[in-house]
């Protein structure tokens, strides 16, 4: 009898060690990638790197200013498109959970969240690039906005659902009109939750490459015209990583370093905000 119990206990301990081993093994790829990118990238980054356009093949030096400016413009534009739509739709979903429209748009949020990014690229190509006749930054922004919306909607909806109904009822009973209740009472109360959703969605789209391949397309020169092709960090990394030139690889390592740091800082600061709010995204 004792022997059997001992075997069962040993089994339990062995199982726990295997689980722990596997669980912590997963962190190794992330750590290896982080260290590698930092090692390769940190040497590249200096003022010259940030303020110059890439040098032609064969010349050393050059920078990634075109991709930096492009990424900022494209992401800013998609935020301008996605945040208002996402917040308003999220408010609708949390305020009217029973309606038919809410059911269907909730379903559409789920669908949109699962659409492969490359498919978004194809669709926006036909919606914007073909009618305009040229690849453009604005088409890239629209594609990224479509990927951003579901995250903003879900975080808005989830945050607002956490707020107690009495808050809204108290404001309404004082005679405050509905839109002011939402904009001046409900939204400010859930602000940090919504903000963390927005930050997370920006962190998600800033590294998206696939939707930009057929929309923003990339541009070796510094451009700020939103109806013209524009470079962005992930596009630059993709194009230069798959090129055969060492100088270009170095530019791509530097760009990867900047992109990775930006994404990680955004994610970690979002975590710090959500710790207060316990939101599932």
């Amino acid at each position: 009898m004792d022997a059997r119990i001992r075997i069962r206990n040993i089994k339990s301990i062995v199982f726990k060690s295997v689980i722990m081993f596997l669980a912590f093994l997963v962190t190794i790829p992330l750590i290896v990638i982080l260290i590698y990118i930092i090692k390769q990238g940190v040497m590249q980054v200096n003022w010259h790197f940030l303020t110059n356009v890439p040098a032609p093949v064969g010349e050393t030096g050059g920078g990634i200013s075109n991709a930096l400016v492009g990424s900022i413009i494209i992401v800013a534009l998609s935020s301008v498109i996605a945040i208002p739509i996402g917040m308003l739709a999220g408010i609708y979903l949390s305020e009217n959970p029973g309606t038919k429209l809410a059911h269907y748009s909730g379903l559409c949020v789920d669908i949109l969240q699962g659409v492969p990014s490359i498919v978004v690229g194809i669709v926006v190509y036909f919606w914007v690039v073909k009618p305009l006749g040229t690849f453009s930054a604005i088409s890239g922004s629209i594609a990224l906005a479509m990927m951003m919306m579901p995250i903003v909607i879900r975080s808005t909806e989830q945050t607002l659902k956490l707020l107690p109904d009495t808050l809204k009822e108290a404001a309404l009973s004082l005679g405050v009109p509905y839109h002011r209740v939402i904009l001046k009472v409900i939204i400010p109360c859930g602000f940090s939750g919504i903000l963390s959703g927005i930050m997370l969605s920006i962190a998600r789209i800033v590294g998206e490459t696939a939707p930009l391949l057929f929309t923003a397309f990339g541009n070796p020169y510094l451009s700020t015209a939103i109806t013209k092709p524009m470079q962005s960090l992930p596009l630059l990394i993709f194009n230069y990583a798959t090129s055969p030139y060492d100088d270009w690889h170095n530019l791509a390592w530097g760009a990867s370093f900047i992109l990775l740091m930006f994404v990680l800082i955004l994610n970690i600061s979002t975590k710090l905000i959500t710790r207060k709010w316990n939101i599932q995204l």
Partner: protein
Amino acid sequence: MPLLKNKRLDLSYSQMKWETVFKRLLITMSAVLVMVVVGILITLIVQSMPSIKSLGVGYLWGKVWDPVQNIYGAWPFLLGTLLTSFTALIISIPFSYAISIYLGEYNTRGWLSNLLKNTVELIAAVPSVIYGFWGLFVLVPVIRLLEMKMGVAPYGVGVFTSSLILAVMIIPYAASLGTSLIRMVPSPLKEGAYALGATRFEVIRSVILPYTRSGLFAGILLSLGRALGETMAVAMLIGNTSTIGNSFKEIFFGPGNTMASVIASQFTEADHTVYLSALIELGLVLFFVTVIINLIGKKIITNYTNN
């Protein structure tokens, strides 16, 4: 006095007007969302019409893809997609289960648990193009050495390499869902088993895992949906060939293509209607498959959390 009263009335009328405007705005934005999704579907169907008409259903299992000869068969890409996704899934399952069980049962709070949880979530935050870039310069040479030892053609890039990177990329999706589901297992169930003298392993095997089975399955479905649609890392690592190898070994370790990666690499080169629309039809298939997988996964989760 009457003047003031009128002003107040005007103000409240304008407020009422704004109230209606605001409510309509909310409805419009939700409707926009539905329109976007319907629009995606219509655009994909309309644009893939030329290929559906001229190539028929046989397109899906045609074995040859040769745009120069105007022959289009999607089988190499379907095979590549299935092979990379399922290999990645099989590699990732033990890890995502381990994380779920560790964070959900063994170590639910404290700094170590938080650290591991956040680290796993950061895996999902790294852009896929960076995974591809790193894989190209670090993983590919390693795999090449491995392939030389195994006696297969040492491409380095290929289905196997992409599956490895994909496996890492999709772990967080199943793991974070699994963790929260395992934490939701009612403690009376576990306590009952402990009271009967079960060890921790036995509680996990015969109480926690059966109780969370459908939820963990849903997590795996969501991971699969991610793997199927993943584009950039795969496009950089799979080698981009549209031919199928002769033996399984050749297919598995040699270069290939997935539906997403072939769209990424050939879409801007497609110079005539049928070629372009054959690529879009791939996108349509991909859209349907990932949407269905995602919706089933979400449905299981809602059923699970409601019960």
